[in-house]
Structures are given as C-alpha cells and as structure tokens.
C-alpha cells in the first residue's frame, strides 16, 4: 500500500515534469521542422515568459491573466524577431542561425538583467492551486496535478491544430516541401513567422508555469536549453509526437533514476540520449540521418 502510494505520486511527479519539458521541446521541434534551424534562444524565451509572467501577476494580480498575456507577448516578440532578422538569413548556411540566435540569448539575458535585476523573483501559484491532496497518505501538490493536466490538454490541442486546421496543414506541408507549398500560392514566409511565434509562445507558457516551482531567475535559460535539446534529439528533430515521447521518457527516467541512483542524476538524461542515438541516429520518430 505504501509502495503503491509512492509509485502513484512519483508517476504524477514525472507527468508534471514531462508537461514542462514538453512545452519547451514542442516549440523547438516545430521551429526546426519547418525552418530547419536550431533556435539557440529557446531557453531564453522560456525565461522571458517567467519574467513577463512575474510582471503581469504583479500588475494585474491574477495568475490566469498572466498565463494568457505572457505567452502572447513572448510569442509576439518571437514572431517580430523572425520578421526583422531571421527572415533575411534563410539563404545563408546554418551557422548564421546559430550565431544570430546565440547572440539573441546574450542580448535578451542582459536586457532581462537590466530590467528585472539580478535577484530571483517570486511568482506564487494561484491560491486555488496551492493546496495539497493526499494520495494513499502521500501528500501531493495540487499545482503539479494542474501542470500534468495542462500538459495533456495542450498536447491534444496542438495535435488537433496540426491535424485539423488550415494553418496546421500548411505547417505540415511546409515542413515536408516548402518550395512546393510556395509554388502553390501560399506565402511560406508568413507560415514561418507564425511557427516561430507559436514556438516561442509555447516556451513562454512553460516559463510562466515553471515560475512558481523554480522562481523567475537568470539561471532559467541555461538550465532549460540543454534539457530541451536532449528531448528534441531523443524524439527526433521536427517530430511533434517525438517531442512528447522525449519529454515523457526524460521525465520518468529523471524521477525514478534520481530516486534509485542519486549519484547518476546528472548522467541519466544523457545515457537515454546516447542509447537512442546509437539505436536510432535520427531520434525515435525522426527521419534517419
């Protein structure tokens, strides 16, 4: 009975972690799928989400409003960046994107430091979610249940969006053959801006949702960006379902691995990645490289 309670709560922990990782990974993989670029600044958009979320909570006093406003602002900023800068680089080789997005992380990081200061900032979970429930005598935070739920809802929403809507269709088509879509009369450049904005907005959602767990701090970006790359590499670059599976795999391995082998905590994620890369070099659901 005791073990069952432990098992259930740890699984829920892993699910809530997977949700946060998924918000990061899915944006990065969507952007890669359609633009063939690695967005180095993805972790920084995640961090920006947390800081904008903090300011939104501080001015409006409502977490839910912040959860809507912050991702919109972060996504809007991402789309604007694509329009203003990235758009001019598609003819260049990939190193240009690496340098530009890496430069963006430095500039954004410094700007955040200047605007919000070096001290970590508290973002409290909404009152309604800050309690605990007991699952077979094991206490479990309601906020984490909410995270797990939010992850599931957003995953379904993105899947339906890609599968059922016209923009989703265009995104899938562009990721398969951008020139053909362009030849058929669709402005591929607009699709790219939209996807970059949506990807950054999703990272922003992750940032707001993570803030009550880790506080809004300058350490968020470097911590997040590595996890995100690992997930996307495990799942396969450009694969939506791959990022979901990658997030779940990494979260479950982290939670149970850290419990049974705490000394290996840092290495576990990379061991999974290595194993996947040896067996399937393109990632679990990626195209074979």
């Amino acid at each position, binding site marked *: 009975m005791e073990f069952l309670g432990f098992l259930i709560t740890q699984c829920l922990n892993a699910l809530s972690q997977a949700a946060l990782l998924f918000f990061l990974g899915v944006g990065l993989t969507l952007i890669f799928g359609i633009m063939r670029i690695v967005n180095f600044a993805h972790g920084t958009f995640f961090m920006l989400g947390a800081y904008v979320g903090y300011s939104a909570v501080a001015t409006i006093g409502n977490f839910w409003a912040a959860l809507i406003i912050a991702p919109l602002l972060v996504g809007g900023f991402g789309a604007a960046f694509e329009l203003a800068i990235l758009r001019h680089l598609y003819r260049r080789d990939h190193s240009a994107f690496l340098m530009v997005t890496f430069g963006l992380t430095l500039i954004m990081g410094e700007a955040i430091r200047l605007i919000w200061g070096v001290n970590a900032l508290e973002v409290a979970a909404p009152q309604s979610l800050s309690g605990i429930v007991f699952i077979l005598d094991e206490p*479990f935070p309601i906020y984490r249940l909410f995270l797990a739920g939010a992850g599931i809802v957003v995953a379904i929403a993105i899947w339906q969006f890609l599968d059922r809507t016209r923009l989703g269709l265009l995104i899938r088509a562009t990721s398969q053959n951008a020139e053909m879509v362009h030849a058929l009369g669709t402005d591929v450049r607009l699709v790219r801006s939209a996807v970059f904005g949506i990807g950054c907005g999703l990272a922003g959602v992750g940032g707001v949702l993570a803030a009550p767990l880790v*506080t809004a701090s300058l350490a968020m970006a470097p911590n997040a960006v590595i996890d995100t790359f690992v997930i996307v590499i495990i799942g396969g670059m450009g694969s939506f379902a791959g990022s979901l599976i990658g997030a779940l795999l990494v979260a479950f391995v982290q939670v149970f691995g850290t419990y049974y082998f705490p000394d290996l*905590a840092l290495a576990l994620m990379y061991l999974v990645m290595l194993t996947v890369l040896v067996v399937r070099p393109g990632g679990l659901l990626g195209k074979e490289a």
Partner: protein
Amino acid sequence: MTTPFTRRAAMRAGLAAVAAPTVLRYARGETPIRIGMPLALTGPAAEIGEQMRHGAEFWAKQVNAKGGLIGRPIELHIEDTTGDPATCVRKAQLVVERDDCHLLFGMVLSSEALAVVPKLAEWNAIFVSSDNGDGRLTGSSFVPNFFRANISGPMETRVISLWLRRGEMKNFYAIGMDYAWGHNSIDVFQDEVKKANKNFVGAVFSPIGTKDFSTYITKIRQAGADACFIVMQGADNNAFLSQAREYRLSDKVQLLTSIVDLNSIHAVGDASIGLVGSTRYTFTIDNPANQAFVEAWRKEYGAAPDVFEGEQWQACQILQAGIEKAGSIEADKLRPALETVAVDSIKGHVAIRACDHQAVQGGYMVKVVKQEGAKTPAPVIIATYPGDEVTPACRQMTFDS
C-alpha cells in the same frame, strides 16, 4: 543683441559650477582616498556583488557628506570581475596601477580572494574582506596585508554546531549541491553532528542546476530524520525551498540551512517560513548601532539591508576606524593600526586580532518568521554566541571541541 547670455556663456557658467568644488578641494590639498573594489557584478555571484557595492557606496556617501575621512573624500573604483579569479586579479591590478588605489574592498568569491592576496605585498595594498568565507585566508594562505572583517565559513558552521548541541533534535539528514562547497559543508556538518552525540542518517547531492526536487523531497521524507541540513544557493536553493513548501516538507522535518539571506526570502516568499540557520548579519539584530544603520539604510534604499550589505558596512567601519587611528592610508602605518582596531559595530563589539587579522565577532542563529503587518517574512534571532566561542584559534580552521 540685448541679452549677453549666449550658449557659450551658458556653457562657461556651467563648467565653472561643475569645476568649482573640485578646484576648492584640491586647493586645500585633499587628495581623495581611493578604494579599489573588484566585484562580480555579472555572472552567478552578481547578487552578492551588488549587495557589497550598495554597502560601500552607502558608506562613502555618508562619510563624504560629513566632510570625508581624515579630511579627505572617499572615492570608490568599481570593476566587474564576472566572478572569475583570473579576471579578478587583472581588475585588481588595474585599479592599483591605473587608479592608484592602495586600499581594496570586494572579491566576492573566496577563489578570487585567494588569487589576489599573494599580490598584495607587491602592490603595497591593504585588502579588507567583507564576505570571503574560506578559512585558509586567515590560515595557511594568510598574508599581512589581508584583513577579514566578516564571519568566516568555519565560524558559520561553528554557530550551527553549538546550536545543535543544545537542541532536542536527534537524527539529521542533509542535502547539498553536488560540488566542492556542498560536499565540504556536509562533511563538516556530519562531524559536528557526531561530536554532539547525535545521529547522521545520510545525505543526498543534487547536480547544479536541478529544477525538479520532488524526488529529493521524497527521499528526505523517507529518511525519518528530525531535521534536514540544506547546503544550496542561488536558483537551486530557491527552487528547493519553493518545492519543499509545495510538499509541506517542513510539517515533518525541521529545515536547517547554511544561508539565510533576504534575497532568497524575497524570492520564495512564504516558502522560507520556519527555516532555521546561522547568518552572518541580519537587520533584526537588536543594538543601537544597528538600529541607526537600518533606519538610515531604509531612508536611502527603501528596504532593509541584506546580509552582505550589512557585512560590507561593518568592513567599512573597521577600515574607517583603522584610518582614523593611523591618520594615514599608507600600508605601513595602516597595518599596525588595523591590527588592534575594535569597533562597536552593527553586530556589537567587533575586534581585529593581530595574530591572523580575523575580526572576532559574535555568531547568530535565526529563524524565518512571518511578522504582523510585514509583507515578507523576516529572520529573527533565536540564539547568539559570543566571539570567543565561535572564532577558531589563531590561523586555525577547525575547533578542538
């Protein structure tokens, strides 16, 4: 042309107004007291660097408003080291050679201070530390031009161990960040627990940058200890405390910490309530000097002074007393003066001892509580230990009993 007030005239008038005080000052032969302050203002240690800068700037402003120190104005030369020892040495050399500073504050990290101290004799400079914790600075790496105004790392741990001996708790667990500081601190803590005839039931280490602590919190719950000692800082510390609160960990286990500072209390809010730990300084220390300091600080910055702001202020008081006593800032005259300096500081009586240049001072255990009417919780003192109990023997880092 009826108005002679042209742009050129205005500029001349403006220049004269700006230049006047400087001209007057130098006319009386008062060259400023130049203090170099290499600080980590960016990078992971920036929070502490900012605090130290505030502390020193506040002091310089107050001293200059009263006509300066031994009749000379204070001038701070601040440089960013990013928390890197090599950069720190370079920046320290810069302020010594370019700006002619032979008094130094700053060096946020002990690794930076350890890199700088061997150069002090060559530079003919005196360095008064306000936050370097490493015991070696007043031990095996001691140099005559180094003074430590702050509580050292071994002294902080000593305070916790003295408190443990008198407490009721029997079984202890520990969690630390997985690098040198975390392991060292927990080793020392484990020793102290054993010396106090209590049980150390185990420890777990989390990699730097851990975001999800749910598994670690489960392990702490399952260990069945009365208390858990936390050795974490920065983002990891904030994440751990926020999540410990989520899981109501402190309902079951008393959380002890090696760091109680206002920054992390502000960052995690109510999640800090109930934390017990040793602190180098807290604005709630009850003595007239501290009350006056806190009041003046609030007027200037609109908030209570944090740990390293208070520690920096104390270091400034000690340097000031030394300079007043020596009547000079020449290293050869200032060094013997500083060696016997004693001040009634914001932490009570604080005296430098000549044998290793450590400031002997009391240690504090605090508990974070929510106070009536205050928005954020604050650390209140639950135990005070006198300087002779918490300071190790000369040039030592450990305690015999």
